[in-house]
């Protein structure tokens, strides 16, 4: 406890006096858990915390163990913080990747009341019970799972999110290139230079703020200069090439089919808020002809007792903090490794003036250049030794070390204590094979690397450098250049000459694969494999004992690798331990499936602009602005905005206003005249000598006899005999027809026609073009419709004789060309007027003017629906994708003289079953009660149950008040259908505890003989 506070000095006490890629002239204030600190431009939050001596940063998922910063990259399992506040608050942000900005606010997570004293820390004491999968074995009986679940959910989870909308916007970009290079370390840069100079279209993405990769973290030279100088020169040249695009702060998160790579560019995350007019993040969809994966490798820990304490850190991360950020992760350090990185790290720490208390190398027989160099520097090197236990709770105070037996499985001597505040540990490096696996590759185990390396590629991708286990800079450079040359050759491009810089690297001696470091006296200990999800070596042993022996079962039973880091540091160790338990080679036991994203991706950027109001584009009719100016309340229909009803000038939207408007609009049509915008109906222009034959095959009724200048109502079936759509088709010329469809099906019907013309019946000479958008359409209906039209129309006689029911003529209105179709959906004398959309408003206004003296009203979809229900016209609710023409009472339309799409099904048992409900009209027996759509029709003797209650049908459409009939009416589908006219059944609506006795009537409530249509 003490340790923590004494070390937390707000003065960057752990910042080295010089060095590092930070700008000491640009101090940046920030807060962590409300406490103010200062870091520098160039810092990450993690490096700033390290520089300020902050060691305890979080609590683990399950046991709430105190945790510190473990790594310096995207693999971080421990240092997850809550970042920012308000609508920009984001949980689980890795402190190791977020760039420091002025005013940054971060909070620790998963701890209450405070990070230092977290009551849930008790879980750690209960840990013997809370082993892998314990919850599958209990919480079953009283008081039931729901009781426990509530508590477990609170304990689980990691950071907290808030329900405040995100104020930032997101963007998307498509990109195409010859060569995409993922990763800007030496391998990636060498590849980019080679491909870029050759003139190929190159994109290089790197997830960090600048290219360089590990070179930014190591004290290495290239051509005798600091390696970062070469990086700077290379980046400068690449930036100068027009054919090269450099994207930093850009993570390639997934590799998909067709050599498509998804990437996210963070444009604003390093700033307090994104720049004006700029998105916070941008998603790139990159289609590359060749992909070079230069994604590097991830260092993994050694699995020893107490390896999770604050103060235990990856060796490579220690070097990053020292060399790149000039920040000291500790004062007195112990190094524990199974490979030469231990010595490299010790040398860097010594050079930084830290007290290095020895390099403990699991390898008995080690030697080689690195060790010699370390010893030459006076660093104590202890072969065949291991750290076997750590001391301290909230912070590290020391470790026990002990000699390892030859096999590395047991201890060959007694432990001794060394006081220290830092353990730099390296268990080797795991190549980043993620993208290779997304692309369909299967990784293979390589003993030399002690890790999985890419297998055979399934797409046009190659991994290079550390990403395929070539861990030296020398190899990385040559590997990258070679891969680029291969890519160029494959693309038929001539390579340009690139001379790679000279390296001065020491040779490395082989790594010793050691997956579990023995514990003192074989005590169970706490050897963490997955630090975030608290999976220990003994959890893996338990899972194996219980039969969860496949890596995939192991993962799901223990949650190994299921945290925010997706096992970047833990999978290899975990799978190797399972292999040891199974006594099989690691390669055979295998590894779990790698899935996108490589690192977590915010949902906002995947959505981009297509969210909220822009989730889907909207369509507007030519008269939209008129409707808006005249009080229309819009409703969406098939992406169109349609007037639902019209408010009076200045009237507010309300239920009453709506009901009144709908009633008035309906009555206007029945008693005088009204006009509705029907531009949304699908319109398909059909031309060609075989059009009539085509229509004959599409519709259930006949078309050969339709005369020029006439319209006809038709019904189309799907291939399975179910009604697809209905509408009128008019013959405009010898070989010229205009088909109309419902608004909802317009798109599908167009595709339906194209499919038959292009695939099934190419012999038919017909061309089909959608003209929905060319023609504005309005329906003028009501007893006065003819008077209004006659007054407005020029160049055509509107008399009943000249333009009878189902007649079609062309004329002009207000100097605009129009097509007039005498067809009716409302059951009134009605005309549909089409005019080119650019004239839509002029024609609409001219007709409104002509209608003023006749009391014309614009009406919306609500009135339209009541009118068609009164007329017994079927629409969407009846055409529910399950009804046949006969069900809809349209069986008589079916032509027996010809086959058509769906005709083969008419006779089939299930489609002809007389128990199928069919269309009827319904009225309340009491003459008052509304019959709700969605009610179920039930015979009187069943209405009171018991359940299951047999169903006789349902109510499909309902008009709460038919101004014409003077009471509520409805359409429904009822077994027995019209044969039951006059009988009563019950319309049950249990969701609202309603039961209405209804009388079965003819579905045509108005003008059954159709005189209104014809006179």
């Amino acid at each position: 406890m003490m340790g923590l506070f004494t070390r937390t000095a707000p003065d960057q006490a752990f910042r080295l006096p010089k060095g590092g890629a930070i700008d000491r002239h640009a101090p940046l204030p920030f807060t962590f858990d409300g406490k103010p600190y200062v870091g520098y431009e160039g810092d990450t939050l993690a490096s700033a915390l390290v520089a300020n001596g902050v060691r305890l940063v979080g609590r683990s998922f399950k046991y709430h163990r105190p945790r510190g910063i473990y790594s310096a990259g995207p693999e971080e399992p421990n240092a997850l913080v809550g970042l920012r506040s308000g609508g920009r608050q984001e949980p689980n942000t890795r402190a190791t990747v977020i760039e420091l900005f002025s005013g940054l606010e971060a909070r620790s997570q998963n701890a209450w009341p405070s990070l230092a004293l977290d009551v849930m820390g008790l879980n750690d004491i209960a840990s013997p019970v809370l082993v892998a999968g314990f919850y599958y074995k209990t919480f079953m009986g009283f008081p039931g799972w729901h009781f426990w679940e509530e508590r477990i959910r609170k304990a689980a989870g990691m950071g907290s999110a808030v329900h405040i909308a995100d104020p930032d916007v997101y963007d998307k970009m498509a990109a195409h290139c010859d060569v995409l290079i993922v990763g800007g370390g030496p391998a990636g840069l060498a590849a980019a230079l080679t491909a870029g100079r050759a003139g190929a279209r190159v994109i290089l993405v790197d997830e960090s703020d600048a290219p360089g990769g590990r070179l930014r973290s190591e004290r290495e030279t290239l051509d005798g200069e600091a390696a970062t100088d070469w990086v700077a020169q290379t980046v400068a040249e690449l930036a100068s090439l027009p054919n090269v695009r450099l994207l930093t702060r850009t993570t390639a998160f997934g590799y998909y089919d067709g050599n498509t790579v998804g990437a996210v560019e963070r444009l604003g995350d390093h700033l307090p808020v994104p720049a004006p007019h700029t998105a916070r993040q941008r998603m790139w969809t990159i289609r590359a002809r060749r992909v070079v994966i230069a994604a590097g490798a991830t260092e993994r820990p050694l699995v020893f007792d107490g390896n999770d304490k604050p103060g235990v850190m990856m060796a490579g991360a220690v070097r990053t903090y020292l060399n790149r950020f000039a920040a000291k992760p500790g004062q007195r350090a112990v190094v524990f490794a199974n490979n030469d990185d231990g010595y490299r790290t010790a040398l860097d720490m010594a050079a930084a003036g830290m007290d290095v208390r020895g390099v403990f190398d699991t390898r008995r027989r080690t030697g080689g250049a690195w060790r010699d160099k370390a010893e030459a520097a006076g660093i104590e090197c202890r072969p065949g030794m291991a750290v076997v236990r750590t001391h301290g709770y909230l912070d590290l105070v020391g470790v026990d070390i002990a000699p390892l037996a030859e096999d590395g499985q047991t201890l060959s001597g007694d432990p001794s204590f060394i006081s220290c505040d830092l353990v730099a540990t390296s268990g080797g490096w795991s190549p980043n094979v993620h993208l290779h696996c997304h692309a369909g590759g299967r990784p293979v185990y390589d003993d030399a690397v002690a890790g999985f390396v890419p297998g055979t590629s399934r797409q046009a991708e190659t991994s290079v450098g550390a990403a395929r286990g070539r861990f030296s800079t020398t190899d990385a450079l040559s590997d990258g250049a070679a891969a680029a040359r291969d890519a160029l050759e494959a693309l038929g491009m001539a390579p340009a000459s690139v001379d790679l810089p000279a390296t001065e690297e020491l040779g490395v001696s082989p790594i010793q694969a050691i997956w579990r470091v023995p514990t003192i006296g074989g005590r169970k200990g706490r050897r963490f494999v997955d630090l975030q999800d608290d999976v220990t070596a003994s959890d893996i042993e338990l899972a194996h004992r219980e039969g969860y022996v496949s890596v995939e079962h192991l993962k799901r039973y223990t949650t190994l690798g299921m945290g925010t880091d997706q096992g970047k540091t833990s999978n290899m160790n975990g799978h190797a331990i399972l292999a040891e338990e199974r006594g099989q080679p690691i390669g055979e036991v295998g590894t779990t499936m790698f899935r996108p994203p490589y690192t977590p991706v915010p949902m906002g950027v995947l959505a981009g602009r297509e969210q909220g109001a822009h989730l889907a584009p909207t369509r507007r009719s030519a008269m939209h602005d008129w409707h808006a100016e005249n009080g229309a309340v819009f409703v969406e229909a098939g992406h169109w905005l349609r007037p639902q009803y019209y408010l009076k000038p200045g009237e507010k939207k309300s239920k009453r206003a709506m009901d009144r408007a709908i009633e008035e609009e309906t009555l206007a049509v029945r008693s005088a005249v009204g006009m509705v915008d029907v531009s949304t109906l699908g319109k398909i222009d059909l031309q060609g000598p075989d059009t009539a034959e085509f229509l004959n095959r599409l519709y259930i009724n006949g078309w050969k006899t339709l005369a020029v200048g006439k319209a006809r109502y038709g019904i189309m079936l799907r291939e399975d005999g179910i009604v697809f759509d209905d509408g009128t088709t008019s013959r405009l010329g010898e070989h010229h027809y205009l088909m109309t469809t419902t608004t909802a099906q317009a798109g599908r019907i167009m595709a339906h026609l194209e499919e038959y013309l292009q695939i099934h019946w190419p012999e038919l000479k017909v061309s089909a073009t959608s003209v929905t958008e060319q023609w504005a359409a309005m329906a003028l209906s009501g007893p006065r419709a003819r008077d209004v039209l006659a007054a407005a129309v020029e160049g055509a006689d509107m008399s009943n004789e000249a333009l009878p029911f189902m007649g079609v003529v062309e004329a002009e209105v207000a100097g605009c060309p129009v097509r007039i179709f005498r067809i009716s959906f409302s059951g009134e004398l009605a005309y549909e007027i089409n005019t080119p959309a650019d004239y839509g408003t002029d024609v609409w206004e001219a007709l409104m003017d002509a209608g003023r003296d006749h009391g014309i009203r614009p009406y919306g979809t609500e009135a339209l629906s009541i009118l068609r229900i009164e007329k017994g016209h079927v629409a969407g609710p009846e055409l529910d994708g399950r009804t046949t023409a006969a069900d809809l009472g349209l069986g008589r339309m079916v032509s027996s003289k010809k086959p058509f799409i769906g005709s083969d099904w008419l006779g089939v048992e299930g489609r002809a079953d007389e128990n199928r409900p069919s269309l009827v009209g319904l009225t309340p027996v009491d003459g008052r009660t509304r019959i709700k759509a969605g009610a179920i029709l039930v015979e009187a003797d069943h209405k009171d149950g018991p359940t299951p209650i047999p169903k006789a049908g349902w109510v499909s459409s309902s008009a709460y008040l038919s101004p014409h009939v003077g009471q509520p009416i409805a359409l429904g589908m009822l077994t027995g259908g019209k044969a039951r006219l006059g009988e009563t059944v019950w319309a049950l609506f249990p969701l609202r505890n309603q039961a209405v006795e209804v009388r079965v009537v003819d579905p045509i409530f108005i003008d059954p003989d159709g005189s209104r249509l014809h006179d």
Partner: protein
Amino acid sequence: MAGPPSAPSGWDMSDYSIFSLLRQALGGHKDWARAWRDPEPKPNYDVIIIGAGGHGLATAFYLAKLHNVGRIAVLEKGWLGGGNTGRNTTIVRSNYLLDENAPFYEKSLQLWEQLSDELNFNVMFSQRGVLNLAHSDGQMDAFARRGNSMRLNGIDAELLDREDVRRMVPYLDFSENARFPVYGGLLQPRGGTARHDAVAWGFARGADQLGVDIIQNCEVTGFVRDGDKITAVETSRGRIGCGKVGFAVAGHTGYLASKLGMRLPIESHVLQAFVTEPLKPLIDTVVTFGASHFYISQSDKGGLVLGGDLDFYNSYAQRGNLPTVEHVVSAGVSMIPSISRLRILRHWGGVMDMSMDGSPIIGKTPIDNLYFNCGWCYGGFKATPGSGWVFAHTIAEDAPHPLNAGLTLERFERGYTVDEGGKGPWPGHH
């Protein structure tokens, strides 16, 4: 016939309870029995179930528990539960419209309510409610029809108006900005989620204890036929003789049926799912968007679990592509704007057995001793116990149970399709 061999591990050591857990804790959990054995295939079984997903395992469990059919084996080409059972978004409900479906799914839901006890394995069945949102009057009417029909079938359902929905899930977009405003919704309070892997493991452990041989890494590659009977199955681990054979291979049904020269009313499509980083409790129920296919819930581990539309092309690959990812997530952030900054942790796909009317096929086939359990589309996880229960009956009695009588293979030819969505013979649209 030989009765089921007794499980090798004594029932005691394998009994799960808080007491056994504490007892084991003292002993360092050294004595837990294997959850299931790893037996070598026997030369011959009375019933062979192909596919150790939830359905295959449940079928074997109920066969062994309720029907006297002799030796039973479940053959699994990979690791048990690794198919769609292991990759689904775990929504459990019985809110169906049609009478061929509703009673069956309700039976399944009732079995769910007892399942943890029945299996002595906590499958974490969480009845947190399933809420379907409506975005138009037409959709409200359709929901009313479905909800009323559920009630008449004795199934719980509630019709919510916009304000009811706002009270229940205030964080949806109720602003003017919403492209598809919320009109209301249909709620099934008894619906919810379950821990998918645990369902497979629980049934496997239960079946194993009843003597069923669960044979993993054993792919069925062909069949040996004698006229209208199948006498043996060819597998990657050799030929195994059989009395009866049941398919429970979901997305692989078409492929396996082709080995018998059969063509089925099924297409295999890829459906993707997504999980976010773990979070403290944020979303306490299951919510589905009505304007495009999208649904969300929160796992007990804390991840938001999202799903949506198919990729819309035939596929046997368990992965999809970006357009669907973008489409699904767009719907998500539009429905719940506050999740925009939360991060997708992982996304994957499963191979869906999409039937031609969107409803499953459980029953007999033209081959005497062959039975099908397939066509589950998006919705077979909720059916797991019910499907196993009726499929076991169908296999044991060589006749469908009344609950699956309407879900036969012949229904398509006879014109009795069970089309919940009214989408027609376009499997991708269901």
